[in-house]
């Protein structure tokens, strides 16, 4: 019962942080802000994994999964930052609307 109470305390905040990330992804026109929105969503998911692990009594497994998620996250951000730099060199701009030459 206590585990359920922990889950209820956290899940509203997790959903709201994920919504902030999705809003950033949808509304922004800057490549770097797209990555920031993605990061925010990942933070929400990391907290969700830990809270779910604690609530179900499998915290060790949840920590292992969270560590995997963090490693994947940092690799995705590094490669995406490299792609953003390449796009900037090509277009001299970080505006998504000016990246029409990536189409097709």
């Amino acid at each position, binding site marked *: 019962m206590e585990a359920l109470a922990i889950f209820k305390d956290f899940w509203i905040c997790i959903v709201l942080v994920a919504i902030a990330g999705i809003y950033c992804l949808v509304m922004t026109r800057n490549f770097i802000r797209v990555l920031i929105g993605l990061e925010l969503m990942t933070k929400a998911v990391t907290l969700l994994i830990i809270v779910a692990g604690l609530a179900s009594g499998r915290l*060790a497994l949840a920590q292992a999964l969270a560590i995997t998620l*963090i490693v994947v996250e940092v690799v995705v951000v590094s490669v995406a930052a490299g792609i953003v*730099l390449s796009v900037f060199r090509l277009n001299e701009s970080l505006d998504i609307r000016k990246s029409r030459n990536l189409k097709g």
Partner: protein
Amino acid sequence: MVILTIVLLALMLIAALWTVMTRGLIRAVLGLAATSIVLTILMFMLGASLAAVFELSVCAGLITVIFASTIAMTQPSSRSALMEKMRHRMRRYWYLPAIIVVVGAALAWLSIGASVSLPAPLSAVADVKKVLWDSRQTDLIGQIIVIFTGVFGVIVLFKERKT
């Protein structure tokens, strides 16, 4: 303890909102680092200390550095044009606090009578190092492959082209 948790959750939400709504990119990255730090404290409080250390060193440290160097290398040519753009962008972001308040109130109202079915807790608490090295070895191999993929991806992206 419960009050501290709620204060930390509110802080995390405020840091996330600041990250999305602030004007400067560097400020947004600092907001992201602040979100990471609050998340680390929450993870320590929940007992996930190993994952918290990873979160603090990698997400609050390394990713902030990656973002800061990317921003430094992509400075726009004209600063006045950037400021003009920033002035107009706030109009698109004013809806976010309203959406957060409405969705938060709706979720709080829904969660009053909601019941979540969880699996039965395990009797023996497993050690995280044992789980990571014994049960989840495939994950570790996957992590190594992902890291190598990232390294090769960055090498390919920054390879000097022969002209």
